[in-house]
């Protein structure tokens, strides 16, 4: 129980501080700390594979992209907007975050909690692989296609800047 409390504190506090900080790099690094906390929670819950996958994907890869984006778009802290520009933006922000919060809370509340005497299921990596490659193969493929489309879309949007037809000199 104490372990869970420590993990939860680290996760929540790092997320909260990341929101409050004005230094974008610090926020990004704290966000990575938050992801590590989530991975630690998976590890605590016995989901070894998911924990390592979380670290590999989020701490290893997504963090790089976040840091890259921050570095390439960074401006001086002075011209960062501290107050929202218009009232409609505030409204839009409140509505969007409220909707997300509602969906998440609804999912959390509607999930039935098992009783006190539960048997911990032992899922090996092999079971996970068989499940993903067998019954859920379709879902995995669909997710892959969606991510590929998103990636290609991002490349198309980003590559409109310079098109002089000449390739780079080798």
């Amino acid at each position, binding site marked *: 129980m104490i372990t869970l409390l420590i993990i939860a504190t680290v996760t929540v506090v790092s997320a909260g501080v990341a929101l409050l900080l004005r230094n974008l*790099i*610090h926020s990004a*690094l704290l966000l*990575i700390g938050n992801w590590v906390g989530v991975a630690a929670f998976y590890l605590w819950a016995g989901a*070894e*594979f998911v924990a*390592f*996958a979380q*670290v*590999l994907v989020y*701490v*290893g*890869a997504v*963090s*790089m*992209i976040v*840091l*890259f984006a921050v*570095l390439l778009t960074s401006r001086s802290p002075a011209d960062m907007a501290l107050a929202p520009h218009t009232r409609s933006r505030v409204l839009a922000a409140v509505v969007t975050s409220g909707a997300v919060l509602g969906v998440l809370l609804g999912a959390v509340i509607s999930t039935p909690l098992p009783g006190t005497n539960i048997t911990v299921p032992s899922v*090996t*990596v*092999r079971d996970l692989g068989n499940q993903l490659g067998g019954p859920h193969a379709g879902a995995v493929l669909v997710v892959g296609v969606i991510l590929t489309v998103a990636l290609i879309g991002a490349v198309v949007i980003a590559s409109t800047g310079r098109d002089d037809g000449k390739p*780079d000199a*080798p």
Partner: protein
Amino acid sequence: MSSSPTLERLPLVVRDWLVGWLPESLRWLAGSLLAIVAVIVAFASLFALLTLVERKLLARVQNRPGPNRTGLPFLPFTKNRLFGLGQPLADGIKMLTKEDIVPRTADRVLHFLAPIALLAFAILTLAVIPYGRHLVPLELEAGVLYFFAAGAATELGVFMAGWASRNKYSLLAAMRALAQLISYELPLLLSIVPVVMLAGTLSPGGIVERQGGWSFGLLPQWHVFTPWGVTGFAIFFVTALAESNRSPFDLPEAESELIAGHLTEYSGFKYALFFMAEYFGMCALCGMGVTLFLGGWQAPLPFLAVVPSYVWFVAKLLTLLLAFMWVRATLPRMRIDQLMRLAWKFLVPLALVNLGVAAFWALTADWTGAVRATRWLIAAVLIAGPFVLLGRKLTTGLAPRTYRYAA
């Protein structure tokens, strides 16, 4: 035939004897701590040795003697310098006593945390490598995944160092490190997928067990002796060089253009920590390469199995490390665009083709007799064809280079 069980279990016997002094309740804790201390001490001394070996080797390649003046401290009054064997010790004392300088505008917290984070992640990767038949510090079912998860996080250390230094060279190095490591992560992972696929397990120990035995009583069944294995190993080797920031991929610290990049604003022991992390990461990647492709602790020939397994592991590890140094001594540094081309246009497609060949290999596992040769032939052609085509396509228009001189 295998080595004598006493010799094989010697490290475990020593551990049990040491732990046996403690009360029953503390034994598992002491055992784990002992394993951690043993791994760190072994690799720290290997690090000290490697710095000397690397300097010596580079010097020999460049036709100079290398460091040879520092003898060992317990031989002070003799003429024998022992090939400069005391150099690592002298270096260590120098690093410890040097002034630690932090730039005034640097981000002090991150500047301090960067070397620690880098070293911590590098040490974490050492935990799952099977060093011998009974010598696995941490046995995990998803050990290979753990290894690459911990290894992927080392990039953050380089980035933190580069950004926190508040120096334009360091920041450029941080950007380069991010771009390079994220590019080479993909072929690295793709190159090990065939191994996991064919071995059917993610545990490093299990993968080594699968490589045991000898075909025709002579040839070891290591993964590197299969068509997909040798391709995977080649890709793994190249990407491991890039992941550990070694020449010819040492763009983040390029001392001639970025004055050592993210290391520019570091001095004293923090600087030494960076080097320690680099060597630890290199050792870990080499150890994983040995485990995945070179048969781990398995002996190369049946009658050589009398030698304990950990000796074979160390021998293979040192061979790979020396190969890393040899590459550093031979090849010049790449440009960043060449680096990206190599990763995205050559290594990633080749790794994907290799994955397909491994699938073919797995499906034809029951081919025996004369058909076995056909299996080899088909797999080899499936690999060699795309390799030649990709290489041709990428080099057209680049060679021969024309030189123009003043008349």
